């Protein structure tokens, strides 16, 4: 699971109102090399929840020097875009789980894939 995916995922356990963002508990993290496309990263940033991304990166120990607030004119800041690219698309949780911040329910991540299936009683 990459942090781009994490940024979009939310807990959908019945009755939960504050299910976003999910907490990450990782036991295995990998960093892959992914082709850098500055334009693509630049377009992605406005669609993200910046705070959630930074927090997730922090949880994984991969925040490095990612700023807590979005930089102005980031479109032309290649340095910044590279940092975002790395955190969003290169860092990957292979094993671990995602936890609902409200209910505590854990969703397993196995072989890089989060399993968000709910049981019948949680729907």
């Amino acid at each position, binding site marked *: 699971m*990459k942090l*781009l995916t994490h940024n979009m*995922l939310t*807990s959908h356990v019945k009755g939960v109102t504050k299910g976003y963002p999910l907490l990450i508990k990782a036991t295995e993290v990998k960093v892959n090399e992914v082709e850098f496309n500055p334009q*693509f990263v630049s377009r992605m940033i*406005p669609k993200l929840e910046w705070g959630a991304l930074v927090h997730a990166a922090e949880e994984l120990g991969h925040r490095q020097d990612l700023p807590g607030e979005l930089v102005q004119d980031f479109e032309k800041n290649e340095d910044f875009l590279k940092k975002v690219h790395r955190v969003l698309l290169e860092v990957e949780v292979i094993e671990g789980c995602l936890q609902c911040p409200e209910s505590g329910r854990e969703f397993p991540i196995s072989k890089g*894939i*989060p*399993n968000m299936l709910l049981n019948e009683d949680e729907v």
Partner: protein
Amino acid sequence: MPPHKPYAFVTYRCEESALKAYTHLNGQKLQCGESSVMLYLAYVSSVTHEEEASVPLPEGLVLLEDFVSPEEEALLLAAVDWSSTNDDVTAQKALKHRRVKHYGFEFRYDNNNVDKDKPLPAGIPAECLPVLERCLRNGHINVMPDQLTVNQYESGQGIPPHVDTHSPFEDTILSLSLGAKTVMEFRHPDGRVVAVVLPGRSLLVMKGESRYVWTHGITPRKFDMVPACEQQSPDHVTPEPGTRSNLTLSKRGTRTSFTFRKIRLEPCRCGESEGASSTPSPSTPPPPALPCCHADAARLEEEYVHRVYDAIASHFSSTRHSPWPRVCHFLSSLPPGSVLADVGCGNGKYLGVNPEMIAVGCDRSSALVQICAERGFHAFVSDALNVPLRTASCDACISIAVIHHFSTEERRLAAVRELVRLLKPGGHALIYVWAFEQEYNKQRSKYLKDHNKEHHGKENLTKNTSEDRREPHGKSAMQNSGHLEEGYEPVDKKQDVGKVTDGKLSVHTNRTAFNTQDLLVPCPSGTTQTSSSHLKSESESHLTPVFHRYYHVFHQGELEQLCSQVDGVKVQSSYHDQGNWCVILEKD
């Protein structure tokens, strides 16, 4: 030698003869009726010979050969006056459909029943009486039948697998085969398939499980593979031990079947989805009934959708590699940087189509999501009824060939609602579902068109890759629910002799027109079963597990009608694409 194909082996007395044969015959074109066939030869060092395990006939099935004499056969065939049928013969001929005629009572295809109060003017022809009396005397039936359906099949025609409706008729069904032999396939819901050769002048007696549980059908084709035990050819040479051939090709002729039934005067007393089988077998589950509540629906989908996809994931993925153009068009027209959710993404076929978009997919099958991950896509496992993405977080959503797997209207509606929930205001959703109407604007869908490329009847074993979620088969006439819309072929209602009723699901024959909306579609297990021998005969196909997937195929307008029940969204466009009904929704 590629597996799952029929081969003929020839043994020569010496190498020289073999070489001569090879040189002269390899690559030669043979004229075979109207079509031509290319002969390909290859040397093999030995012929694998397998003892053909004898396959028992389905319970309750009895085949009586030479039941009528050739004279009686001629008499019976002459007794049918085809010119007086009230069918539109021209339409039938145009659609290359088998001919059907009823006596005694008319079987109505629109409600799968018989009108007991309106007997047809023509009762069973007198010529049939001696045969029926013979059946009574020999104890195959206890009471004289009063309904007769005559079906005439030309070479290349058949009838989709079905169970004869049980409520209007008494137990035993008699079927007399005249004019030519054929092969009838019996299929059990658990996947077993038994191919039964019906010689000309034979009587088939169907009772019990063979009558109520197994479906029976005739694959539309021109040749059947049959055991080569009856040696009528003058050129037949006694095979040497160890090289015994056990199969041969039998060309189909025109076969006429006389199916005799007794109309039930009292309503049947079974009253349950088990079917009126007198000896229910605990190990064979009856065909499932349509679910009436969420729990049942979820269970049915678990059995006939999720379990199947997980089992066939890799095979399925290998046959789904070509994205459909119109879906790609939708995706490519999204502005760069759009967030897309592909709900029911399968193997991720669409996730990489537009590299400018931020695409995330989810699917119920972990095996399929695994494939997405391997391909570098963002995906997770979840249910389409409960997608763990925030409300109004997506610019666009797609649901391609997903919603037809939900077994109740309520769940299908819930799936649409979920898609709409994910959309931002002004966002678009594209939905594709399998259409009941496979032919549109006189264009047969790929699903129906591709049968010629496939081995007939080998739908369970074929390794051909088809791009659609459809596997091979025949050319029966199109069956429509009845409403004639522009662009449709005339309705031909006399498709089947019987259908599964009482809310049970019918098992579909691949690559034919649909005859009900809720079906179980067989699909090959592909690589999950390693075939032990390339000489696998048709009767051994029961060794390959056949999975059945549940589908609710949509009528024209049904998808729009479903979407119109969702607030805050409108149908922007709707169309038919290769056997699917499609809509584009726009969120307010």
